[in-house]
């Protein structure tokens, strides 16, 4: 993942509430087996309306999306984050996010920035004509009109974003701790082992015969 320290540029001044992942990327786009190319399907149903914000020349290619409450609710599909990333969005600003979506966003280098509704309203106004800056160093969203909205981020996630860290690699480095935990389970809750469970299973196995 590429490190992200700051996202600056035009923003889609949308503000819509309860935008679910079926709106971000409809299910028929989920048949892909790669992570790329989903920008084409992003907000397909919204884009069916000729006056939609995403095809408005003023905002073309904006790296920031401003949305309303509960952005990314619905399914766990990471395709929603891949679609946003593919259309060049690197930060989403909203009063709240679904838990699963914000996790997916982080893992794809998109900053989910939580701001109070009043700040969102103000930024929707500014973004009609001007740029917005999200800065991870100072943890603020700013505009050229002296607006300055501080936000919070989980410290670990912030570090992963800023340093472009691979989470799996970091966790694999904790192998000793994980093995120790597994040994404890084998001792205290031996029935948890899949090997024992599968001993009498009726499930056919493609991998282990």
């Amino acid at each position, binding site marked *: 993942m590429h490190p992200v320290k700051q996202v600056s540029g035009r923003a889609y001044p949308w503000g819509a509430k309860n935008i679910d992942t079926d*709106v971000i990327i409809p299910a028929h786009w989920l048949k*892909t*087996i790669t992570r790329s190319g989903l920008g084409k399907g992003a907000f397909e149903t919204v884009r069916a309306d000729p006056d939609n914000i995403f095809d408005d020349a003023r905002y073309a290619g904006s790296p920031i999306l401003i949305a309303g409450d509960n952005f990314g609710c619905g399914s*766990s599909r*990471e395709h929603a984050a891949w679609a946003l990333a593919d259309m060049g969005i690197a930060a989403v600003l909203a009063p709240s996010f679904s*838990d*699963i979506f914000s996790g997916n966003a982080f893992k794809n280098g998109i900053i989910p920035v939580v701001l109070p509704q009043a700040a969102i309203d103000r930024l929707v106004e500014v973004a009609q004509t001007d740029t917005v800056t999200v800065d991870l160093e100072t943890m603020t969203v700013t505009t050229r009109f002296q607006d300055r909205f501080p936000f919070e981020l989980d410290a670990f996630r912030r570090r992963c974003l800023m340093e472009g860290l691979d989470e799996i690699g970091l966790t694999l480095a904790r192998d000793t701790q994980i093995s120790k935990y597994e040994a404890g389970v084998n001792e205290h809750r031996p029935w948890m082992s899949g090997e024992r469970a599968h001993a009498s299973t009726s499930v056919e196995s493609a991998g282990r015969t």
Partner: protein
Amino acid sequence: MASIPLTLYEKIWVNHLVEQRDDGTCLIYIDRHLVHEVTSPQAFEGLRVANRKVRRPDLTLAVPDHNLPTSPRVDARGNEVPIADRESAVQLDLLRRNTSEFGIDYIHASSVNQGIVHVVGPEQGFTLPGTTLVCGDSHTSAHGALGALAFGIGTSEVEHVLATQTLLLGQSKTMEVRVDGALGFGVSAKDVILSIIGKIGAAGGSGYVIEYTGEVIRNLSIEGRLTIANMSIEGGARAGLIAPDQTTFDYIKGRPMAPKGADWDAAIAFWKTLPSDAGARYDRTVRLDATDIAPALTWGTSPEDVVQITGFVPDPESFADPAKRVAAQKSLDYMGLTPGTAMQDIGVDYVFIGSCTNSRIEDMRAAAVANGRSVADGVRALVVPGSGLVKRQAEAEGLDRIFIAAGFEWREPGCSMCLAMNPDKVPPGLRCASTSNRNFVGRQGPGARTHLVSPAMAAAAAVTGRLSDVRDLIGRDPMGATS
């Protein structure tokens, strides 16, 4: 020293803590991982690129469900029927090849054990109380019905779990949703969860893990509890828990992957320690009374748009929140509804009985209120059992014959019309009474209009051709229930 009373969630959390980092993030061990074709290809690809293995294939189980057509899977000569849609065929084939390459158990599409991943887990005894269980699918919350901390994850997390059998998580807040009293005649688990979501809102549980408590929940079967926990995510909560009890133990006992012999006794002893302690504190408590819950359904395009079947399409102007007013108007335009219309005057074109919310044997039995009646003219009605085992059981009980005689289609197990990824779709502009969990714009197909209902209400809609009160169909007097 008196120990601090803990909630079920806190007990599971502490039990699965591998380590807590200085910044507060926790590395949590994952006991069970379910995999399906749609959210896994990129995860396996990631492993391959980084030359990584699956840490615990024995704790992982794969089953195809989302893309699989619900038409017969083998032809008259016993040969597998090829899948017409090319992209679906590629995804399904990839699941088989990936699980084979990484040594993961895979349930074949034509196996009697195949089904929707959230029906299969509990049914096989893969889902156990006190475990952490994940799947790349948001309705993983369903497994919380058995007292498992179960939640949906994205594909990067699927890859993380495959490689490390852990996840990095922050602790959630806890919400108790308590439903007291006894449910009225004709009221089901689906009506309970729709009423809960109507009350807390689609984002009400955001940041929380819900624990469902109270007499109503205790008296539900595991099937009913699965319906409730399944839709936790529609109330914004990533997971929903129900404390394991004798009902849970009776359900699990003897299932293929459940503990046996001495393991079973040890497991039961442990599971009995799991329920929340008396005096345990929740960050928020919401109470509902069973007497306020009636057969319910949705009118709009968010699962929080709930109304009782005796109610009316609301007037957007009646909402205090201006944003909700705008959203409601948009919903009504999409749904093609006029404020003030009685819900029971709304005609339907499609009926879908299925999905991981309502496709278990009890749901099939509930839908059999259609017995002796006929699907209304112009209505297409599908019954899609959640797994091959549910299908077999229903057929043994003669339910398939009831449905077929009434004019329903009796199909092969899968996600079917719950989401528009396989051939079962609701055509644009048409209206569907659906037992699934999401009424989002386009969820059942582009332009499709969805009303979420219980299986009995769906069956009632099928035979009357309109949204109907199932209590009128079966008679309000329980004694006349089978008339």
